[in-house]
């Protein structure tokens, strides 16, 4: 038995020393200067609905924008659908995937952790046509280096069932105020980034808290957001973590109003059930997201990834995916293609309406260095937000 302890001790010692090198700083990954031939395969991590068709994409009857890519590049695509941003960060850390469609609450973590490489935008011909409002965003451009190409954008809208919510809502107070008439039918996003939505509401209702950016919260502001969220919990019938949960919730009468992605609204209205929903962007503004395709620093198929990044923002492909998912396309050319598939698509999603996105705060990664530029206080990072969210839901 003693020998076994020795063996165990030896293994542990080796393991500890092997893992000890993890904090020696993150090397800057290399940037390619040319895109060579495809390596024959491409393993992606993506949100559900982004990579549909082909050999290994999601299967949806009637939709396929991956096969043309596979035929042109020779790269066979597989996709691992991420459950949420954290799941995607975790998957990318394994080094088994070539690229990811990361939201802003994942991008900065991936960059800081050395899991993704900067992108040489000169190698992506379609990038020049992307709307200016999507370029050089703080969540995917660090120290002047760009880390990916934008996929599309959308706001976290307020979705409601007009049969129950008879007055069209224009404020988030319907889901936050203690005296909301829809108590017991409210829903919210079951994820730490939702703290920003509470902060956004506080920006409008409690301006003396001094919140300038819902992702830059110091301890006091975070505490206020937590109080608001705990108050909201009494109104919530069920949080939603995946689109399916929200779709089920509205279709089965558990939820009547709450934050949502357009995707859920489209799916509910297309499903032919009794429940129909509508969406709106309230007067306080909204949080939102714009996803970035990023290359893994350990990518085994970097050429295929570059080809994919160029392809997915090309007009036809981008129109395909944004019409299907329900988000704004990235360029005028993509908009033109989208109009052919779904008239009014670009207007519906305010694709080139920069004014609409003025009060949309894209998901970003909260960090200790305040994102609003304050240097006199330390802000709370995503770790703190996760603990705050546990506090709200677990108490």
């Amino acid at each position, binding site marked *: *038995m003693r020998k076994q302890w020795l063996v165990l001790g030896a293994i542990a010692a080796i*393991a500890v020393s*092997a*893992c000890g090198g993890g904090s020696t700083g993150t090397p800057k990954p290399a940037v390619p200067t040319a895109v060579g031939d495809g390596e024959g395969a491409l*393993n992606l991590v993506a949100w*559900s*609905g982004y990579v549909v068709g082909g050999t290994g994409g*999601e*299967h*949806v*009857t009637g939709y396929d924008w991956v096969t043309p890519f596979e035929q042109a590049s020779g790269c066979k695509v*597989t996709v*691992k*659908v991420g*459950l949420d941003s954290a799941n995607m960060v975790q*998957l990318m850390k*394994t080094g*088994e*995937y070539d690229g990811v469609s990361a939201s802003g609450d994942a991008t900065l973590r991936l960059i800081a952790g050395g899991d993704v490489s900067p992108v040489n935008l000169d190698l992506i011909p379609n990038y020049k046509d992307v709307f200016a409002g999507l370029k050089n965003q703080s969540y995917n451009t660090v120290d002047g280096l760009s880390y990916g190409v934008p996929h599309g954008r959308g706001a976290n809208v307020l979705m409601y069932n007009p049969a129950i919510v008879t007055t069209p809502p224009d404020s988030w107070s319907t889901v936050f105020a203690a005296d909301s008439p829809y108590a017991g039918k409210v829903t919210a996003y079951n994820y730490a980034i939702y703290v920003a939505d509470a902060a956004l509401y506080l920006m409008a209702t409690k301006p003396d808290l001094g919140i300038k950016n819902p992702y830059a919260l110091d301890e006091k502001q975070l505490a206020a957001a937590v109080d608001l969220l705990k108050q909201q919990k009494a109104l919530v019938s069920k949080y939603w973590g*995946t*689109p*399916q949960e929200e*779709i*089920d919730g509205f*279709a*089965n009468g558990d939820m009547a109003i709450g934050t949502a992605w357009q995707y859920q609204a489209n*799916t*509910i209205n297309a*499903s*032919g*059930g*009794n*429940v129909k929903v509508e969406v709106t962007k309230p007067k306080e503004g909204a949080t939102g997201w714009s996803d970035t395709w990023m290359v893994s620093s350990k990518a085994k198929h970097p050429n295929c990834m570059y080809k994919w990044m160029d392809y997915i923002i090309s007009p036809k492909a981008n129109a395909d995916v944004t019409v299907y998912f329900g988000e704004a396309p990235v360029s005028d050319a993509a908009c033109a293609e989208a109009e052919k598939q779904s008239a009014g698509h670009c207007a519906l999603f305010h694709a080139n309406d920069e004014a609409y996105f003025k009060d949309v705060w894209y998901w970003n990664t909260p960090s200790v260095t305040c994102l609003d530029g304050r240097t006199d206080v330390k802000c709370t990072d995503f770790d703190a937000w996760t603990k705050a969210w546990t506090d709200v839901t677990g108490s």
Partner: protein
Amino acid sequence: MQLGRGTRIALRLASGAILAFIYIPIAIIVLYSFNSSRVATWPISGLTLDWYRQAFADVGIRNALSASVAAAIGATIIALVLGTLIALAVQRYRFFGRETISFLVILPIALPGIVTGIALSTAFRSIGTELGLLTIIVGHATFCIVTIYNNVIARLRRTSASFEEASADLGADTFRTFRRITMPAIRTSLVAGALLAFALSFDEIIVTNFTAGASIQTLPIWIFSNYSRPNQLPLVNVAAVLVLLLSIIPVYLATRITHGEGATRG
């Protein structure tokens, strides 16, 4: 056996109610595999066989199913070998640390799946193994060993060692004794344990999530990923129904084999 008539009736009713409790959700699963809408609402909007048609053509389900079967078979075989070895050692020999072994064997299944999953995936990655079917099998085998071990050891307890000694006295060597004497005695307990090990591996999701990696999907993982793609939900129900139907025969056969000996466990 004496039991009041009231008690007998109460027991019959209770058993019926509990069986109904167990099968109502199953009935819902079956019903909604025919759902004509992509979203499941009550009452059901309409019936269709489309999903069954799609399931037979779907590559994803087929791959996931074969991966799950392969993983379960692999895990069961390893568990059979390792579990029997440990059980024989513990039951037929005396040595230091004997008590700890039953404890150690049950640990993987008693600890939360997330702990086992993280521990195993860290172990695999630190020795540089790529996650895939092999790591799934190894992961499953770790917590399946206990089902074989417990069944075999319970049976060995009831089987006297004197048969094995007699066999050795008559000139049979170790392997022959095992083949001719020990194996037949524990065979049905192996079948019962294997059945449970197979079921455990087949339905496992939490540990598998951590040990599967990018390239492979077992059926539970396929189901899990489909719940975040709201476009083919009834397909998941179809998969569940098909698995249920496919497993009726093996489960029935296995219980008949073990019941021949008068007990289903050990």
